[in-house]
């Protein structure tokens, strides 16, 4: 039964800002639980093919990652769709769009998805986020919850009716 929302944070929490997605996912999980939203949190070092069957049960997904293609401390939400996975040279480099394509090819469906990119700058060894990235996390949580509550309202009613 597809009635949950998946929040997938990925990155390396021991490489400073690379762990922004993981940290954001954890905060979203706590906030969603407090608000009774039907959200399941996933945290990965990298997105791999192994995640494909795990996300099958979800109609909607938010992927959270850090990136250097936007200003430090800013956030960008994009609706994403399946994308050709090409040669798939590295398991470590699976983009969420490629994961969605693998799900479509192998299982015939994939969740409707957003990608949230958090602009990072410090990717050196370290288990703390840069100040700017840490300061932007509440905004990531709020924006994610807004998307979840808008998109997830229908799912919430299904969830209430069929808790299993």
């Amino acid at each position, binding site marked *: 039964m597809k009635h949950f929302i998946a929040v997938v944070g990925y990155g390396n929490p021991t490489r400073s800002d690379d762990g922004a997605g993981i940290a954001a996912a954890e905060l979203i999980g706590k906030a969603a639980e407090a608000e009774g939203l039907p959200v399941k949190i996933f945290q990965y070092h990298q997105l791999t*093919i*192994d995640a*494909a*069957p*795990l996300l099958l049960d979800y109609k909607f997904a938010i992927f959270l990652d850090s990136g250097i293609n936007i200003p430090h401390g800013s956030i960008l939400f994009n609706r994403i769709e399946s994308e050709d996975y090409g*040669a798939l*040279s*590295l398991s470590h480099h699976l983009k969420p769009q490629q994961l969605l394509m693998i799900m479509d*090819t*192998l299982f015939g469906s994939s969740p409707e998805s957003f990608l949230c990119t958090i602009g990072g700058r410090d990717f050196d060894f370290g288990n703390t986020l840069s100040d700017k990235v840490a300061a932007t996390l509440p905004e990531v949580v709020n924006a994610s919850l807004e998307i979840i509550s808008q998109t997830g309202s229908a799912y919430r009613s299904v969830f209430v009716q069929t808790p299993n």
Partner: protein
Amino acid sequence: MAREFIIEPITRIEGHGKVTIYLDDNDQVKDARFAVTQFRGFEKFVEGRPFTEMPSIVERICGICPVSHSLAASKACDFILGVKIPKAAAKIRRLLNCGEFIQSHALSFFYLSCPDLLLGFDSDPATRNIAGLISANPQLARNGIRLRQIGGHIVEWLGKKRVHPAWVVPGGVNEPLSSEHRDMMLAEIPEAMDIIQNTLTFFKRIMEDYRKEIRTFGNFPSMFLGLVDAAGNWEITDGFLRFIDSKDNIVADMVEPARYKEFIGEAVEEFSYLKSPYYKPLGYPDGMYRVGPAARLNVCGGFSTPLANLEWTEFRDLERGPVLSSFHNHYARLIEILGAIELEELLLKDPEILDTHIRAFASVNEYEGIGCVEAPRGTLFHHYKVDKTGLMQWANMIVATGNNNLALNHSVLQVARHYMSGAKITESMINRVEAVIRAYDPCLSCSTHAFGQMPIKITLVKPDGTIADEAVRG
């Protein structure tokens, strides 16, 4: 004029390696070397740490087979504690190793090797990868993902984490198996059985297409090493060392792993960070031996479970003596998955598996400990020395891939001789050199896990250092 080819990096293996092929004056292959170009240093930097930390530290050697390292480390630490671990702990450690074998072998077969086996070694490298496999045979890909997931569930449900679970500890394990998780594991067994039996049927059908590769992929006489149980059957977690020679004679049997140094010497070559262990009585390099799936099936007298034993009989019928071709590691891997699933079921149906007495406690009672298990890739040794406060003074680790180092070099040489034509670099040769290495599923580290086409640069270098030829792929 003597020349050399360099292939770097090797793809779809764990870690960083390169191959150098040396030609003689007549452009015939003279020698080949498989070198590991990364340095990890675990043996040195664990010195000074409390021995109780070892299972967690050495797990970080690898992201694919951390369970093997934590098991070997914990067994070495059991020696230092001087304890016999509770029966339930021994059984769930075995169960954990079954999960490791299922998930790691599934990764090797379906993700890393199936693109070659299904699409062919000479197919377009742009599609000869997991993406090509997904397109060509989605059911096979789904089966691989599912089987890996089922194996991973065993590790995750026991250790709370799928990678690097801090659950195996000196003296046992830190939490018992719950009846809920036992039932969840049992529920997945029929599907796992179905997948592996279908895959065995598939593999035996396509094996005929690879007669040339079977003949040339590491197909040479050598010794073999593996663990066996007290009855001489297949064993992956406890048991005794058994060495056989290339004619199937048992040359050392029922050897306690703690005596490994009497039988295994360690050589070092200047071109690689990987050790070259050898069978001591024969010296270096004549004491070359192989470990891993085919080696285990060669040394054992059968499986103690019926379905795997039936497959084992068929496997051993491939040749009169031991099965020599390293290509057959793929076949052996599938049989071992079957054996691990059968063993998993036996363990889960044993009421003692739920016993909550799962750890023995003690402080330092011995200053030295040796632990040995079969990792998916072969026999793994951890040997520790501590001071009276339990701080690590010295460590020696012989990992599965190290055991195979001499054979890997010999296999690359054999393939290069068969598939190189003069000084010409061919795609066919590169593919097969990589594939023979992949047949051993070497784990050079957990740092890179590539399973598709990566840039490969092959350089033909003259003795004076100038480049005679160069090919770049990717």
